[in-house]
Structures are given as C-alpha cells and as structure tokens.
C-alpha cells in the first residue's frame, strides 16, 4: 500500500507561538483517522498544512508522495470548520462550481444528496441557516471521489441526531481506498468509525495508534484521551 500522508519534523509557528513541534506521521491509504486533541493543540494547523492552505512551515509534508500543491489539492477534499461558500451562490451554483474545478466531483450524487437533505437548489446560501449551510458543504465535499478527505470538526455545534446523520453521510459516501482524516473532540460519537487515532497536544504527537491496538487494551479512546490530556481536565 502506498503512503497517502507522510509528515516528518513538521513545525509551525504563528509569531512566537509555536503550534506544531516536530510532528512525524505516516498513513497508508484506506483508513479513517481520528485527529484528536484539546482546543488550540494544532489540529486545524495540521489540516491546513495538509490541504495546502499554510505554506510557511518547516519540515517535510507529502500527500500521495507530493508536496502540497496543485496535484495534492486535486486529490484532497477539504471541509473546514466554517462556511466557505460565497454567499451570493445558490445551492446549485455551489454544485456547478465544484463540478467545474474538481474532476473527481460527482454532480449526480451531489444533486441526489441535495434532494435527500431537502435543500432547495435555488435557495441562496446567504438565506440558509447555519445548519443548512453545513449540510450543503458536507454533501458537496462528500460528493468528491478523493484520495484524501480532511474534515475539520464536522460535528462541532450540532445536536446528537444531526451528528449521527453527518457520520452516516461521511461513512456512506467516501470513496473506496480513500483516507479520511476527521478532527474532533466528540470522541464518543465517532470512536466506532476510526481505524486509527492520532492525538496531538502541545504541538506534539501524544498518541498514534491503530484502533485494533487500542481495543486490545483495557481502555476506551475517551479514557486514553483523558489520561493523555489530563492537564486540560
């Protein structure tokens, strides 16, 4: 199996504030990775680097063997923790936009999901509620058959029923052999879908283990999380 993510000695600072301190990672394709850690631990910065949003870092980052750039962006589907679709767009415009730029985008699938979520294709994003906007973004991102999905806090700020629906959308729609990196701190809800868990704290990797290994032990992911990040509890 080829490596989809390879990170060596990754460091990132914002002014004097160092958020990543020598992070090393390596993942093969076809995994669902839980990126866990308390707020401000560097999860979003790591995702931004992987998706090519941050350039000024030290260390080596390779996605499918290449440094973040045009190719890696074409194979990476990114769901940020905020609404990034232009407000003037209608739902159908957003679908056309992704169809224009991403060759792995499935317009039929996106339209079907739009109907399933009962979203009006002619409704402007500006007039949608935050929940509707999040649904639209999620369905658009998951309509891509990407090699890597980077989902930054897809469950943040939603009720348990919606959380379950979101997880279903993710699990039922990601492409075969793809790798899904999900950043979250709602461990209980998502623990079941992970193959691997990556815990980051104080800018360093605190735990990088497969779920099989964790299940063989006597502690749940949440218990390990509390143990690792006891300073924050």
């Amino acid at each position, binding site marked *: 199996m080829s490596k989809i993510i390879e990170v060596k000695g990754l460091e990132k600072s*914002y*002014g004097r504030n160092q958020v990543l301190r020598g992070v090393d990672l390596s993942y093969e394709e076809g995994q669902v990775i839980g990126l866990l850690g308390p707020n401000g631990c560097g999860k979003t910065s790591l995702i*931004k680097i992987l*998706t*090519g*949003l*941050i*350039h*000024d870092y030290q260390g080596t980052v390779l996605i499918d063997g290449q440094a973040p750039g*045009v*190719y890696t*962006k*074409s194979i*990476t589907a*990114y769901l*940020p923790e*905020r*609404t*990034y*679709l*232009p407000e*003037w767009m209608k739902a159908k*415009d957003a679908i056309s*936009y992704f169809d*224009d*730029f*991403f060759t792995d985008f499935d317009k039929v699938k996106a339209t079907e999901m739009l109907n399933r979520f009962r979203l009006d294709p002619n409704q402007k994003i500006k007039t949608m509620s935050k929940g509707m906007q999040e649904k639209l973004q999620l369905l658009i991102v998951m309509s891509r058959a990407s090699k890597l999905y980077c989902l930054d806090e897809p469950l943040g700020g939603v009720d348990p029923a919606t959380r379950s629906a979101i997880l279903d959308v993710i699990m039922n729609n990601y492409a075969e052999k793809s790798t899904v990196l999900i950043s979250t701190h709602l461990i209980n809800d998502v623990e079941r879908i992970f193959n691997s868990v990556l815990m980051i704290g104080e800018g360093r990797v605190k735990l990088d283990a497969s779920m099989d290994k964790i299940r063989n032990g006597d502690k749940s992911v949440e218990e390990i999380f509390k143990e690792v990040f006891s300073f924050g509890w």
Partner: protein
Amino acid sequence: MVGKLIKNELKAGLHSVAPIYIATAAVVAILAISFLFEIVWLAAIALIAVVLVGFGILAVTIISVINNFNKSMFRDQGYLTFTLPVTSGQLLFAKALCSFIWILLSYIVLIALFAGIYFYAAGQVDESELATLKIMLSMIVELPDTATIIGVISLFVTYFFLNIVFLVSEIYFAVALSNVRPFQKMGFFSTILIFMGTFATTSTISTLLKAYVPLSLKISLEGAQLLFEPMYSSSGIVFGFSDVIFMAIASAFFFVMTAWFMNHKINLK
C-alpha cells in the same frame, strides 16, 4: 482551469456591480421618458441622478474589486479559493483580468453617460450636433494621415488600459499586504492606509520621472515624435514615456509581491 476561474470570477463580480448598473439603466430610462414627454422638472432631476450614478458606477466597481479580492482570498471564502487545484499565478491572473474588465466597463459607461449629457446640453443651447461633428472632423482632417490618428488613439487606449492595470495592481498589493500579520489586526483601515501610501508614493515618483527623465512623446500636426527631453519642457500634447515604463514595471512588481504574500506570508484565520 483559467477559463473556469474567469467564468466564476465574472459571475461573482456581476453580483456585486449589478445593482448599480440596474440603477443606471432605470435613471437613463427616466431621463429618456422626461425628454420624450418634455417634462422639464423630471429631466432636471434625472440629469442630476445620471451624473451621480455615473460616478457611482466607478466608485461601486472599485469598492467591489477591493471587497471581492479581500473576501475571496483572505476571509472565509479563502478556504475554498486556496484549496482549488490551480496555481496562485492562475488565480491572480483570473482575478486581475476580471477586475480590469469591470473597471474598464465602468469607465465606458461613465464616458457614454457624460457624452450623452454633453450632446443633450449642446442641443439645448442650439448648437447642432452636426456642427459639433463638423468641428471635430475638421480637427481630425488637419492631422497628417490616418496612420498617425490610429497611432495616437492606440497610444491613448494603451495608456488608459495601463492605468487600469496599475490601479488593480495597487489595490491587490494593498489588500494582500494588509492581511500580513503586522497589519492584520487593523482590518480594512490598514488596506486604505496602505493603498493611500502606495498611491501617493507612486504618483510622486511618476511626476518626478515626467519632470526629469528626458524621454517623451509629442503629438502634433506633423505626427507622433519621440523626444529626448522631459515631458514638461515641451509645449503641445506631450506624454511622459518614462511614466509609462514606470507604471508597467511597478504593476509587475505589485502583482509579484501580491503572489509572494499569498504564497508565503498570509495565514488564513
């Protein structure tokens, strides 16, 4: 990909400037109706409104160019823009081209509106349009040949286009620099401040170059003539050539710096 970027950029721009163009069309329609039915008071109000929307088009277009660039690159939309599988050069080119098109269109509409007002005013003081055209034609006929006329017009158009490119480059540079860490906290105020500073500096350099660099182009009845003397030392219609070269170099510099800030110095919040 550049074609797709341009298509979507034009769509985004259209949503920002459409209201002012609709307002202009409405005001022009009211003006036409007032002329047709000879409603003097309505014509007077509509005429003032046409002047206001004329300048409004230019102002709204420039504000929308600033706003669209800032929002689509350095605010939440930047998370989408910067994850598209395109190079920053392609991104910048598509945005700059569309900004150029919108600003050019606003100038064309502004000129058309004022030309319309002029012809209307000329008609009101009984100076027939035919007589005006005859005077204009006689001025052109006195020029030496068609090639020179075409050359002079081309020069004016190139100079005009270059000015728009220069304006776009200054705007983009100011917006990008204001999103670099030390200026980020000041928000939109830093964009205005940087733009004013850049504009004042480049204007001063441009004026000094015109005054002291011995390179200019003189337009006269004998045709276009390259002079090796400063612009202000000759009489008649004279262009400072050093100024044109400076604008071209400065535009390239501002675009390169904008791309550099995008690639190296800006972290989306």
